[in-house]
């Protein structure tokens, strides 16, 4: 008591536990258990190829074939599958769809066997040495004999004989708690030894330490026979349980014997228990020791409308009609036949329905003794159903929820723990067909869940597909990128290719220069004009287009390529397109002014610059391509020069816009950051000094652009003087640098001058271009 007893120790104490609820309907068993088990033979048998839970086997016979008793008619397939056998010798007269032993009366593929009356057995294959054989061999043998649970559910026995869990206890169910039915009762009375032998085989197969045979206390004769058979058998004990429906229910019997409950949704094996019906045990014995397949079973044919109620050995496949004709059945005005017992059996909708492996009873009750349910009334919540429920459910609550289709509530109230024993509906004073409501609700919920699952699957499928498409796309892009890089690498490694490119670039440049010349000849007179106009055009173009083509910039004039780099600095922030446009316009305007009003001064510088640039291009054609393709035709110095010049120009334009911006604050702006970043990226070899200069220039440019933006018609000399200050700073900065930046200084000076000019009449330009 202090220490936790093991399951076996506890069961061995012999205590019979209790389960809640239950009912005691009139038993009416004495109708049919007064005689020995008779034999029944018939001429035509209808053998459904599936008589168990699971998958049907595949046909082994064809129409017209002669078969012997016990010969397999089908072979089991994958999964839960059992064969069916010929119940007697004869000829397969047909293979048809015939009504099945099912509440719905649906049809199933059925083998029609015409008996020849000889009842000749096929060669039997007993396994007398089952104890020495491999367990799997015995289990396979039992499967081949077509043994399924004979208690009612018809679950393939071989599955239960090879449990995946450790089994301590085997319970043999001889309770037979349903009223009227006595098939197990008489089987135990007259075949107790064989049942015990079967139990030993099963116990051996599942390696159970103990076997308990449970019988209800109303079956005194059966108890006596089993007791006698157990006289010198070890590890098999008898337990007599009180008569109460549904003590023969699997879960209830487990509780009665062990005091344990099978976890919800689980099977007895989860707590180390296997349960078999006594009839199944008998069939296992016959299959193993006698080598006989399951071809017949004990069926109780009973009810007040049967003159000679009794138990019969009925060949599987015998139509109920034939069976009833032999026991003196006289139907009520409205015929009423039940397959199984009154509590859980189902109405027989077609009397050509065959006896199958799970058919334990054919009941023909009188309306007096088993009155049909009356008209359903409202539930008055009397709670008798709850008192009767062996699963401790609240049937009346479930009923309300079932009527209202409240699936969540039904699940919350454990609808799926209902074993459909019918006790609730049996006691219901309002005659509510509770079990029917639960069955419908269960199937509704299952269906809804299936649909939900399907919908989820479809959604998942869709998502996976989308993912896959996206992945493919990315993979494709990556592949393209890789191959492009490969090509580039190949080019870089191949010197001749480089030369070719350089040559091509040179060609392109030459071509462009020619075309520019022709264009400019028409537009302007002086080379200065030409250059300035080209710069302005390039700038405008670049600023407008959002894409920077590296190759294009390489192709174009140095000014253009320079602008490209500047443009690149501008592209990232698309924030101030206006500013950019204005700057471009200003640049153009400056170029014009430069041409018109400072011809003398600028001429030299411009020429010099132009020459240098062209020279640079020429040089570049012979030089190896530098790392950064943007600058590959420019030397670092040239680029720097050009860039600074342009930056100064731009800065000037911006300065016109800025009224009061201090140059010191400028570097915090994105523009400047980007510009410096870009510059440093483009030429890593550039010195820190140079970079700083460029930065300053960019800052100046920014300031100018701002100034330009703010510029109005009434721009005065104060603005101009303000503008000059940063320029001077720039000049100061530049002056500190080595002499190679002299040209830049000059350019800055030019820009300054231009800015001054601009201050006078830049309004027109600004409005033209904005």
């Amino acid at each position: 008591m202090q220490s936790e007893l093991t399951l076996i120790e506890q069961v061995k104490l012999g205590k019979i536990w209790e389960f809640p609820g239950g009912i005691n309907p009139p038993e009416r068993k004495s109708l049919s258990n007064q005689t020995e088990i008779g034999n029944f033979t018939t001429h035509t048998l209808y053998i459904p190829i599936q008589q168990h839970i699971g998958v049907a086997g595949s046909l082994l016979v064809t129409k017209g074939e002669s078969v012997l008793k016990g010969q397999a008619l089908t072979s089991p397939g994958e999964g839960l599958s059992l064969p069916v056998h010929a119940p007697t010798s004869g000829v397969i007269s047909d293979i048809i769809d015939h009504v099945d032993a099912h509440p719905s009366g649906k049809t199933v593929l059925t083998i029609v066997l015409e008996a020849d009356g000889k009842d000749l057995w096929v060669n039997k294959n007993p396994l007398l040495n089952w104890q020495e054989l491999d367990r799997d061999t015995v289990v396979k043998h039992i499967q081949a004999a077509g043994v399924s649970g004979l208690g009612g559910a018809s679950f393939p026995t071989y599955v239960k004989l090879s449990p995946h869990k450790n089994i301590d206890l085997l319970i043999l169910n001889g309770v037979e708690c349903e009223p009227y039915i006595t098939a197990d009762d008489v089987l135990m009375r007259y075949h107790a030894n064989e049942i015990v032998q079967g139990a030993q085989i099963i116990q051996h197969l599942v390696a159970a330490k103990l076997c308990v045979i449970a019988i209800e206390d109303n079956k005194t004769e059966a108890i006596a026979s089993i007791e006698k058979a157990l006289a010198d058998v070890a590890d098999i004990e008898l337990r007599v349980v009180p008569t109460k429906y549904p003590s023969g229910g699997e879960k209830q019997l487990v509780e009665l014997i062990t005091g344990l409950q099978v976890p919800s949704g689980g099977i007895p094996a989860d707590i180390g228990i296997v349960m078999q019906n006594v009839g199944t045990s008998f069939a296992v014995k016959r299959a193993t020791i006698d080598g006989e397949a399951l071809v017949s079973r004990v069926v109780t044919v009973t009810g007040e409308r049967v003159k000679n109620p009794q138990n019969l050995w009925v060949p599987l496949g015998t139509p109920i009609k034939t069976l009833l004709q032999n026991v003196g059945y006289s139907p009520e005005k409205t015929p009423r036949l039940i397959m199984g017992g009154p509590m859980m059996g189902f109405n027989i909708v077609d009397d050509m329905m065959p006896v199958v492996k799970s058919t334990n009873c054919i009941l023909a009750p009188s309306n007096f003794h088993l009155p049909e349910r009356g008209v359903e009334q409202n539930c008055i919540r009397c709670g008798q159903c709850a008192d009767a429920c062996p699963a401790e459910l609240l049937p009346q609550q479930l009923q309300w929820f079932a009527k209202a289709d409240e699936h969540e509530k039904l699940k919350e109230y454990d609808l799926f723990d209902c074993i459909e024993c019918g006790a609730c509906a049996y006691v219901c004073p309002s005659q509510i067909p509770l079990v029917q409501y639960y069955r419908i609700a269960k199937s509704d919920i299952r269906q809804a869940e299936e649909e939900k699952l399907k919908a989820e699957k479809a959604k998942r499928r869709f998502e996976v597909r989308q993912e896959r498409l996206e992945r493919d796309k990315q993979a494709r892009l990556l592949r393209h990128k890789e191959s492009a890089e490969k090509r580039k690498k190949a080019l870089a490694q191949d010197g001749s290719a480089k030369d070719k490119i350089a040559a091509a670039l040179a060609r392109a440049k030459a071509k462009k220069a020619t075309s520019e010349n022709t264009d400019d000849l028409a537009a302007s007179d002086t080379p200065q004009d030409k250059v300035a106009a080209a710069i302005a055009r390039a700038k405008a173009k670049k600023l407008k287009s959002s894409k920077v083509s590296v190759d294009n910039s390489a192709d174009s004039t140095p000014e253009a390529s320079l602008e490209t780099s500047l443009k690149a600095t501008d592209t990232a922030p698309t924030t101030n397109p206006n500013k950019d446009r204005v700057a471009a316009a200003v640049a153009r305007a400056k170029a014009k002014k430069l041409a018109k009003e400072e011809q003398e001064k600028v001429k030299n510088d411009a020429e010099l610059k132009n020459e240098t640039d062209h020279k640079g291009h020429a040089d570049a054609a012979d030089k190896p391509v530098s790392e950064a393709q943007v600058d590959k035709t420019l030397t670092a110095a040239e680029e720097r020069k050009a860039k600074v010049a342009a930056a100064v120009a731009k800065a000037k334009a911006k300065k016109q816009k800025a009224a009061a911006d201090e140059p010191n604050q400028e570097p915090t702006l994105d523009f400047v950051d980007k510009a410096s970043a870009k510059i440093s990226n483009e030429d890593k070899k550039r010195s820190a000094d140079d970079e700083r200069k460029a930065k300053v220039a960019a800052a100046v440019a920014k300031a100018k652009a701002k100034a330009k933006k703010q510029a109005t018609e009434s721009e005065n000399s104060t603005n101009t003087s303000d503008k000059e200050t940063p320029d001077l700073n720039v000049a100061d900065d530049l002056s500190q640098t080595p002499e190679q930046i002299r040209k830049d200084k000059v350019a800055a000076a030019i820009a300054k001058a231009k800015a001054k000019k601009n201050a006078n009449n830049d309004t027109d330009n600004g409005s033209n271009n904005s």
Partner: protein
Amino acid sequence: MSLLTNMFVSSPHGNLGLTTNQMMRIVAYATLPGLAAQIYFFGWGSLIQAILCISTALIAEAVVLSLREKPIRRTLSDGSAMLTGLLLALSIPPLAPWWIAVIGTVFAIIVVKQLYGGMGFNLFNPAMAGYVVLLISFPVAMTNWLPPTELLQHPMAFGDAFLAVFTGFTYDGYNLTQLKMSVDGITMATPLDHFKTEQILNYTTTEILNSPLYGEYGGTGWLEVNLAFLLGGLALLKLGIIRWHIPVAVIGSLGVCALLGITIAPDQTYPLSFSLLSGATMFAAFFIATDPVSASTTNQGRIVYGCFIGVMIYIIRIWGGYPDGIAFAVLLANMCVPLIDHYTKPVTYGHKRRREAKS
């Protein structure tokens, strides 16, 4: 005969045989000892009220059923309307004017029962809801209980009672106030009523109980009526129509409260026997609180429900404005039923932990 009938009948095939109609009738029969005791001690008025209430209930139910286009004959035969009328009749004073019975019954059947959907759907006990409506609307008429017949100054025959109910005067022209005079000329009330009044006047329990209204264990007459209802209730228990949970819980909790009261304030509270065997205690415990429709539906819940009623009865009797609080207690408990049911759901098979091993 190939295809058989009854294709879609679900198992189980058959029924216990005790139908709702039968259950209602058995409950009605079980009230008969109590009714007889009431007639014996308080005159024929109770019988007249019973007939009046039952007829009104049936008529009211029939009218609503015809409006709702429901089967009238079948529904009336379920006996629930009859029982509601009967229970209400047993609750109201025997000589209350006829319209009291009619109003109460009509309200109980039409508003409390049928407007909620008919049998099985009412949230509140129809008889008690009808009673409360009457008590609140017509407090004087509803507390005009005559003293037991043996104490009456003017004994009444059936005809007197009939006339009193329908005209307000007996054959000899006495009105209810005059009738309430006892043999010694004191105006009488029910024991609970009297007790409350006297208590307000600061009499102690001992002093109050000296009045001829009180017998040895309860009010004269009331004791016997309560015992008669107890008898009927035990019969119901025996027949399995009601279960023990609610009556035991009601009586038990009321008894515990009474014991506590006696211990704490013996001169301000009712003695135990008086608590249990006066007023409508037994009637409530076995016939009112056990109404399955409006009571809790789990066994555990029924105990909670019964205890709630018992405690409320005591609280209302001691501190409430009304001498008896059964109707209010029951209605309050009715309101708590969904909550009680929710928290007393039994644990389903397979959801329990492993049982402890008991040798």
